[in-house]
């Protein structure tokens, strides 16, 4: 079998999947976004930029997404890094597996059920009630951006922990011995060796979490109570409630563009950070 045919056969399944599940729907969305809403909803073919002109009507959704997705990513990173470090460096081999499984366990339950738990915790009879006991009263947590942030950080933490864990676990501990031998205090060795060597894990984790957060809708719907909504919520609303497919498509297309732009800027940055490195690939 020639090399070309073999390559073709290897790539065919992924290519077909890519075409049917990604390219075709995207093409449909783009075509729809230039159309008009039918009298009873749905889509009527046309060529107009009216839907795009109407985008500011959904500005709040974009603003929330663009604020909370990066904030959530950074918050998840800040919490995940020490956890991943602990798991990879400090925990003995015997306990590693057990603790890693504990990190995944939440994934075994539906995010829906877990978010309901948070609704209770952040709701009037949860944490605010406890705070009331020590004199902090009238604190509203549920249906605030904070509640959404808590929900997304909680939900996506494992996706941040794992890539960082892998890069720290792979780190040759003997390099830290060499650093100590050359007079680096533990903190200096962390900053000069461990942290730079774990950048690939950080980059991957941030990328995963950020992209998924941009499309998130369940957590804002549950913990934001219709007050803090993401672009995802706007899309659900436009496609399923108001049945304005044309406008929904324009919003969706815009989200894709925003994502492409942010992700490519991010990749640029990472490429510069990892400039000339081959010990690690950043993506």
């Amino acid at each position, binding site marked *: 079998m020639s090399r070309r045919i073999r390559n073709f056969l290897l790539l065919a399944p992924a290519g077909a999947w890519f075409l049917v599940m990604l390219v075709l729907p995207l093409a449909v969305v783009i075509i729809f976004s230039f159309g008009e809403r039918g009298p009873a909803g749905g889509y009527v073919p046309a060529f107009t930029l009216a839907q795009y002109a109407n985008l500011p009507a959904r500005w709040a959704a974009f603003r929330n997404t663009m604020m909370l997705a990066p904030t959530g990513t950074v918050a998840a990173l800040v919490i995940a890094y020490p956890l991943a470090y602990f798991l990879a460096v400090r925990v003995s081999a015997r306990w590693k597996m057990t603790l890693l499984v504990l990190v995944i366990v939440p994934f075994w339950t539906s995010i829906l059920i877990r978010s309901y738990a948070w609704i209770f915790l952040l709701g009037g009879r949860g944490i605010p009630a406890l705070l009331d006991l020590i004199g902090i009263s009238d604190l509203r947590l549920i249906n605030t951006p904070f509640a959404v942030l808590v929900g997304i950080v909680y939900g996506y933490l494992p996706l941040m922990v794992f890539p960082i864990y892998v890069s720290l676990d792979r780190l040759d501990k*003997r*390099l830290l*011995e060499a650093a*100590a*031998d050359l007079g*680096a205090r533990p903190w200096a060795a962390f900053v000069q060796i461990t942290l730079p060597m774990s950048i690939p894990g950080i980059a991957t984790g941030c990328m995963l979490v950020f992209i998924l957060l941009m499309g998130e809708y369940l957590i804002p719907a549950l913990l934001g109570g219709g007050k803090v909504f993401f672009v995802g919520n706007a899309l659900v609303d436009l496609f399923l409630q108001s049945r304005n497919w044309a406008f929904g498509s324009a919003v969706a297309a815009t989200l894709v563009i925003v994502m492409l732009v942010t992700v490519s800027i991010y990749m640029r940055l990472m490429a510069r950070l990892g400039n000339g*490195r081959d*010990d690690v690939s950043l993506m």
Partner: protein
Amino acid sequence: MTNTPLDDKQDQTQPRVIAELRGVTKRFGTVLAADNLNLSIGEGEFLSFLGPSGCGKTTALRMLAGFEAPTEGDVLLDGAVVNEIEAHRRPVNMVFQHYALFPHMTVAENIGFGLRQMRPRMAKGEISDKVRRALDLVRLPGFEDRRIWEMSGGQQQRVALARAVVNEPKMLLLDEPLAALDRKLRKEMQIELQNIQRSLGITFILVTHDQEEALSMSDRICIMRDGRIVQIGTPQELYDQPISRYVADFVGTSNFFDGTLEAGSGAIAGVKLANGITLGGRPVGAIAAGDPVSLSVRPEQIGLTRKQGGAGALPVTVRNRIFLGEHTEYLVRHETLGEFFVLAPRQSELSEGPFNSGEGLFASWDATAALVLTRK
């Protein structure tokens, strides 16, 4: 006849003791990696650890560097017990057997790493000066901006060497630092290391598999086996007065004839070999009649001649001739003793002419040149 080279050495020069192992034992689970090591290292001394793979050389270095704490006993630096002192506080640098270069840094950043940790801070210009000189020293000028993975194994090893040397520590621990280099480069590096050691007065502790390296560079050599120190002494002492067959085998090459020690005392004892022949040799150490011993004869101590020799001469046949320039090495075979090596200097060849393969000759040596060594 047990020699105490350590005491001899101190009597001669009285060096200040810079590092000491006192009854140091290290266990990894059930593995005994270091077994009651006792050793004191003088300031400015060049000491080598020589021994087979897995005998605990790296472990000994790691305890001096501060990566492992002894299970029992004490490690002393400058007269103070440092068992609990972390590696980054010890005035010691190590060249790792596996290099341990930082892959995310350039060559210059790797070499300058130790200098950058110094407080008060060293000026950038001074650091790059020192880095450049260190690179010259290891024959890698202009490699500052290279990445580690762009270098060959031998080049990486030299960067590791430069990274340790550049700090001018009180004591340098070198774990097989030249193993990946070709012969010529290794010779050059050996000379450079000796120069550094003399000019800066740094104490060197070298681990090596290469006995020639140990013999040519060290003030003293420490022969190790299964976590224990078998013998410490100057290269000369170890070569001339090995305390066991093990040491004689490790230092230089020797021919061994196994047998049992016959009764009798004095300067020369008889060894009854397996084939019934009894040969004489100088007994070394505490061995008693009936003990399993080896008669050790260095190849250069053996004379070859075509003429029917004295009573002790052994009839042999030449199997192989290896021309070594200054010397010629012969592999000869005795009917019952088997094969052994003879190193003949050029002069004797002039007198008797080179011997050819298959030629029948007579081999003999002075009984005082043969050592009777324990096989344990």
